[in-house]
């Protein structure tokens, strides 16, 4: 289940920059080697930021950038890191990148930064970032490592956005903040603006963190019934 160790991928210098191996590095984490549903890394924030789509989207992009660039940096300096202090070196690199992401968000998108502030900090402790550094970047060249990081970040992001979309739609009757289902406040004041779908009563269960677990269970169920080789036989 949690076999995150990936065999080093041989890239010969004559190979193209974006050949078959590189495509595999991006595609695999999206589906067959997904960080959340297969590798079980980075689940904490999947529960906390997925009540609405917008923070989930920004969180996903931030994580993809941090995993990509931390993999790149660590892979560049991998031969100079003593084994005994590798975790501290890795964490300092991650913490610096997360601080950059946080400052950029604060400058360009202040309201989202306010909404996410704690969880942007918790990217440092997101298992995906460190998991990929330990399992891939410490043993591979910079370019494949960068692609592996971006791929895993995107694999994480799409699960996050999918869960957030379902939770926001059924829990609040909205997508990206636009109300679609359910009785709106305008409806109570002015009957003309009521939609055909105003009969819907928002589902309180979808607002609880436990609902994210249930949704991930459903995603795993669907994925594994399609991909027989992912089924846990132990």
């Amino acid at each position: 289940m949690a076999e995150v160790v990936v065999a080093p991928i041989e890239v010969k210098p004559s190979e193209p920059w974006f050949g078959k191996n590189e495509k595999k590095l991006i595609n695999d984490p999206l589906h067959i080697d997904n960080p959340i549903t297969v590798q079980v890394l980075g689940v904490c924030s999947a529960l906390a930021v997925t009540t609405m789509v917008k923070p989930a989207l920004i969180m996903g992009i931030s994580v993809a950038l941090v995993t990509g660039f931390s993999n790149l940096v660590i892979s560049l300096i991998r031969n100079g890191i003593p084994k005994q202090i590798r975790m501290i070196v890795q964490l300092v690199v991650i913490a610096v990148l997360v601080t950059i992401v946080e400052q950029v968000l604060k400058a360009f998108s202040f309201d989202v930064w306010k909404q996410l502030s704690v969880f942007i900090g918790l990217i440092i402790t997101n298992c995906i970032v460190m998991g990929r550094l330990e399992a891939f970047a410490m043993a591979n060249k910079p370019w494949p490592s960068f692609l592996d990081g971006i791929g895993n970040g995107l694999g994480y992001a799409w699960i996050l956005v999918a869960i957030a979309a379902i939770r926001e739609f059924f829990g609040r009757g909205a997508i990206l903040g636009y109300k679609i289902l359910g009785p709106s406040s305008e409806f109570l004041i002015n009957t003309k603006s009521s939609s055909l779908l105003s009969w819907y009563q928002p589902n309180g269960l979808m607002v609880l963190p436990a609902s994210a677990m249930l949704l991930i269970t459903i995603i795993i169920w669907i994925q594994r019934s399609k991909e027989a080789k992912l089924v846990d036989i132990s």
Partner: protein
Amino acid sequence: MDLLNIFIKSAFIENMILAYFIGMCSFLAVSKSVKTAIGLGAAVIFVLAITVPINWAISELILGPNGIFKTDLTFLRFILFIASIAATVQLVEMAVEKYSPSLYNALGIFLPLITVNCAILGAALFMVAREYTFTESVVYGVGSGFGWLIAIVLMAAIREKMRYSQVPAPLRGLGMAFLLTAFLGIGFMSLMGINPATYFANH
């Protein structure tokens, strides 16, 4: 009574995993057998009991406005907290590798991942947010570690039993773990809102 109150609250009512869903990664991956779960749980208690007071000292004596620099340096909190946690975990890893190689092999990548276990950093941040004193922070660290141990052992025990049940093939293992966590979480929600202090006063 106050310290006991903090202990019970952090272990059961505000359980890191089942109430806040913090520290899930290693919880899901290492809860396959009770033995490994107890090993990792003990390691988490140990790390929390050390790092929460250390981080208390860092935030009070170095980063706070009354610290040695006499300036508010709280923006450095994340980096310093994570550095002290990483150093502690590295020490624990070396000790485990030396004294218990079987536990070291069983824990595998999840021992270094204690560093990035959200529960450790989360406990440090909660400790700052709730303005605990030094003694309270020690009790809080041990208590939330104990709560983590209870949750992971509970989960491992259920999963060991699950091995003999007829689970649909795609849900076996990880899928069932997620489902069980969701139900355990809903179960622990019934503890929310209980205040041990008033409970002991009334009984």
